[in-house]
């Protein structure tokens, strides 16, 4: 079940990458802010609608963690779309993901003391080689 959820998130995230690229390729770069506002606004409304139908318990940390994530995500995407508007997709997407992979790996091991299995290490090594080859 956990792997299935991961595969759904994987597929949807990939399709979102295509919409980002489509924004640039369809000559809509000048409407980047409108795209992002619709992007996050729609998700916010969907989330709000779900909460209206299902009562949820909440802790104060929900709000602050969520707001910080929202700020980080929006700023990250804004910078990403600016870079994507000036460089080929086959370069920008892998480079950004290589950076995320390395930095997130450092944070995971240093801050969360996570341990990786042999196949995971092999997967990370292969990912690094793959992204290096693409770049």
């Amino acid at each position, binding site marked *: 079940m956990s792997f299935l959820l991961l595969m759904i998130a994987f597929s949807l995230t990939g399709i979102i990458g295509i919409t980002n690229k489509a924004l640039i390729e369809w000559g809509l770069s000048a409407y980047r802010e409108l795209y992002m506002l619709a992007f996050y606004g729609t998700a916010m409304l969907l989330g709000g609608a779900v909460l209206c139908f299902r009562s949820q318990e909440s802790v104060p*940390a929900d709000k602050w963690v969520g707001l910080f994530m929202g700020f980080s995500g929006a700023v990250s995407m804004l910078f990403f779309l600016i870079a994507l508007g000036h460089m080929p997709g086959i370069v920008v997407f892998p480079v950004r993901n290589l950076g995320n992979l390395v930095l997130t790996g450092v944070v995971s091991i240093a801050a969360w003391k996570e341990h990786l299995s042999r196949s995971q290490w092999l997967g990370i090594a292969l990912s690094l080689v793959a992204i290096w080859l693409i770049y």
Partner: protein
Amino acid sequence: MIEQGHRIPIRLYDYTAQHRTEGMSASAEAPLPRLSIHTERFEREEHDLYYMAAFLILSIVFNTFFASCYKVAARKNCNLQMVNVWVYVGSTGTMLAYILAKGHLPLNPHALLLGTAAGILVFFATLTFFHHMKRGQLSASWTVISLSIGFPVLASIFIWHEHPSPRQIVGMALIVIALILFGRHETNQGGKAL
């Protein structure tokens, strides 16, 4: 510099075309000194490369903050659905503040529709990822999500006709193998949990 130039063929083409046009219009009055055109072109290419690299690095740093907070949310026993909604409140608020600071918002129905469709997708992508994170490891899970670059990369090639080199094609094949390795581990973990 030649190697870097090779990696951004679209930008190189843009500059070449732009200078070709400038050269044509200028040549009607007086021939441009060839050396100065090339010097300026390379300076602009280099400047643009660093400029865009800075944007990419900033994007990576902020995305790492974002990714790390998934684990914070899980460890603080946050209500993941509530966090998910607050994420989009924060993002929408950030965009509104940015638009207000810029002072104008150009409108276009296609951009609006595309953004709305992407918003629906990202809501469900984040929700499923949050639920997965209850059992998964941050580094492994985020690596798998990172590999979803295959979608836009393939779209760039087959829809928008970007041309990958042979080594880039080998790299894309390796991404699939890496994904299978992570998938096997995640499946085993899921089986143990159940």
